């Protein structure tokens, strides 16, 4: 009797276990994997950011629909903190999955080891697909720690209507630094004769930001054949003769010719640049970036440029390649990387793979120039606007490959501020800041 009872108990337990297991396995199999996608687009930061968020909100559901087993959650970090957040969180053991990253910080990531080497994933791409992307100037800077999303070469944006109003041919733009100064002086205007400048000939930004070295110092030191940092000696070299000439050039724009406002040293890049350009403060602004095209389209100053159309035209605002020597145009791009602590690297790469396709990147507002060669054949990118930009990309140059790039950028920005605001002696100040940097980081 007891034996029969025991048998029944065992059979019942086994049956219940079997039923539970059968129920659990499919539910486990169906449970979607959640990956995090860290970006820096902030709806409060203006129209450019809003457009990128809208693009993400369109792209991610499309990815989830195509991959029902994968869910994507957004994480947010400020654009100039996203790379350091990855390094910091990696040191603290906090995992992330897909993260936006920048080429300038790749040496730091390389040493920190917080990003996954994507070679094995990219190796699975068919040859045609690999060649479609690896031609780009930024590919060499970000791969294998990231896949670039575009080519972000900076140009100068100008107002065609103001050129016309003051008797200049809007089809002809400055081709060297000398003519850039001439144009800037001519276009700087006090329109209501109150003794104050209302239209500045050439807008620039010299705030405490990475933008200062990238857009307003590097192109000029490169123009004068100098280097910010010497890869052989691994020392900062911005106080060289070329550095002095570059500094003298920007100093004169602000303090001698007064074609660039003094307030270019305060506030954020967006406040000083984009917002003021849209408000009609500048005739020309150097440092035009890809995220300007959305707001310009919204303002009606360009039509059919974003998203690009074959009939696209720059009506009021147009661009020209910055008037420096060839190969002196700062170029970067946003890239997508995978955090080394990611628990779902395969799924994360699937997302990258999904995004880096012609269909997705064609209307990615922050892309700048298409990273995929195949996209350049499209009729909508044959317009003068994009072709001029392509010329700029061909002249593109990246920031020096040092793990202390952030410190170098901070040092140069502070040094320029001291020279432009306090009118400190150029040579001695450059030397003082260079020495301070080298005392700590030379040889690293």
């Amino acid at each position: 009797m007891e034996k029969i009872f025991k048998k029944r108990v065992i059979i019942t337990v086994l049956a219940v276990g079997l039923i539970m297991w059968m129920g659990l396995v499919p539910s486990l199999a169906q449970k979607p994997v959640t990956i995090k996608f860290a970006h820096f687009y902030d709806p409060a930061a203006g129209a450019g950011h809003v457009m990128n968020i809208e693009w993400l909100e369109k792209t991610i559901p499309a990815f989830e629909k195509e991959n029902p087993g994968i869910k994507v959650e957004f994480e947010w970090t400020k654009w100039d903190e996203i790379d350091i957040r990855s390094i910091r969180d990696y040191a603290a053991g906090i995992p992330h999955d897909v993260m936006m990253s920048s080429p300038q910080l790749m040496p730091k990531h390389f040493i920190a080891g917080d990003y996954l080497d994507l070679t094995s994933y990219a190796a699975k791409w068919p040859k045609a697909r690999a060649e479609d992307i690896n031609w780009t100037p930024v590919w060499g800077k970000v791969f294998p720690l990231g896949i670039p999303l575009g080519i972000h070469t900076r140009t100068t944006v100008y107002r065609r209507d103001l050129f016309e109003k003051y008797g200049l041919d809007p089809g002809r733009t400055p081709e060297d630094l000398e003519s850039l100064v001439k144009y800037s002086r001519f276009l700087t205007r006090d329109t209501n004769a109150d003794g104050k400048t209302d239209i500045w000939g050439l807008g620039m930004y010299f705030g405490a930001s990475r933008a200062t070295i990238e857009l307003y110092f590097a192109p000029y030191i490169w123009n004068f054949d100098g280097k910010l940092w010497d890869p052989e000696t691994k020392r900062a070299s911005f106080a060289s003769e070329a550095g002095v000439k570059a500094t003298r050039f920007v100093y004169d724009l602000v303090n001698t010719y007064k074609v660039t406002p003094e307030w270019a040293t305060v506030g954020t890049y967006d406040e000083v640049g984009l917002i003021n350009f849209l408000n009609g403060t500048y005739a020309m602004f150097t440092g035009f970036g890809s995220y300007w095209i959305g707001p310009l389209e919204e303002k009606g100053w360009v039509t059919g440029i974003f998203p690009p159309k074959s009939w696209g035209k720059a009506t009021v605002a147009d661009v020209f390649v910055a008037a420096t020597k060839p190969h002196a145009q700062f170029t970067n791009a946003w890239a997508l990387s995978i955090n080394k602590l990611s628990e779902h690297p395969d799924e994360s790469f699937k997302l990258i793979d999904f995004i880096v396709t012609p269909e997705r990147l064609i209307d990615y507002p922050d892309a700048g120039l298409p990273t995929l060669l195949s996209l350049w054949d499209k009729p909508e990118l044959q317009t003068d606007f994009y072709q001029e930009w392509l010329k700029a990309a061909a002249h593109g140059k990246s920031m020096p490959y040092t793990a202390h790039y952030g410190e170098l950028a901070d040092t140069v920005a502070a040094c320029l501020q001291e020279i432009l605001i306090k009118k400190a002696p150029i040579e001695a100040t450059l030397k003082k800041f260079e020495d301070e940097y080298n005392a700590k980081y030379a040889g690293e």
Partner: protein
Amino acid sequence: MERSRKQESSRKGGLYILWEYKLPYLFLLPSVILLIFFLAAPLVSGIYMSFQKISLRGISEFVGFRNYRLLLGEARFRNNLLFSVLYVAGNVGLSVPLAYAAALLITGKLRGIQFFRAIFLIPFIVTPVVSAILFRSMVNPSFGPITALLEMITGKHYIILADSTLAMLTIIGHSFWRSFSFIMLFLAAGIATIPTELYEAGKVDGAGAWARFSHITFPLTKIHLTIVLLIITMWTLQDAETVYALTQGGPGYSTEVTAVRLFKDAFINFNLSYGATIGVFLLMMSAVFMIFYFKLMGGAEHY
């Protein structure tokens, strides 16, 4: 009886006392352990890190006083220390006397005092970074009301945050605006505890308002003043967030106080060893200020 027991305890030494009063010490033990864990351990670890060179990979190497030597050899860092002292002195020098006066005002029997209490509290409840951003827009060269006011008064156009002195005054002004209400409430609480009989007795003895203040109110609030001075000094000394949100340490490095430098080195550029070394300097500065205040207010505990 009690006295002889104490004398005996002190003769027999610390261990005897520990054994004799083991129960109270046992009650104290969890707090002591928590203190060691959360206060002493990070402190020791921070100091230890300041003697190391930590790579981005997390590999550390003992370098002795190299970080200290490099930092002290920098004009930038020496200025960081100087700006911190200026920032603290400016904020404390401005906010403590004015908040004291306001505390006297709100503890007095004046009409409409409820209104002033509510108004004074506003800066205290606004998030620091939000108030810093608000301040930044107030001094904006194009549309800032403070800039416009200055222009109206002087007839000159100012770019406040591009001027080293004005930028420093702005961060001090912002810090004053934030600290004022806290100091005032703290001191008002102290003033309210003074028995009214003392003032009545003073009046009977013919003491005027100044005499009542200097002989009753001030001596009896000295301890509150010392505490509030310490708190505000520590807050100001360690304030990186509002200064960074307002000026990012600029123009140049002219508002880069030590806490902002620490934030930049440790959390933006991820130089942990320099960050730790700057942290040790901040700790030393706090200790110096603490000793200075206790010396300045010496005897406050007797009241």
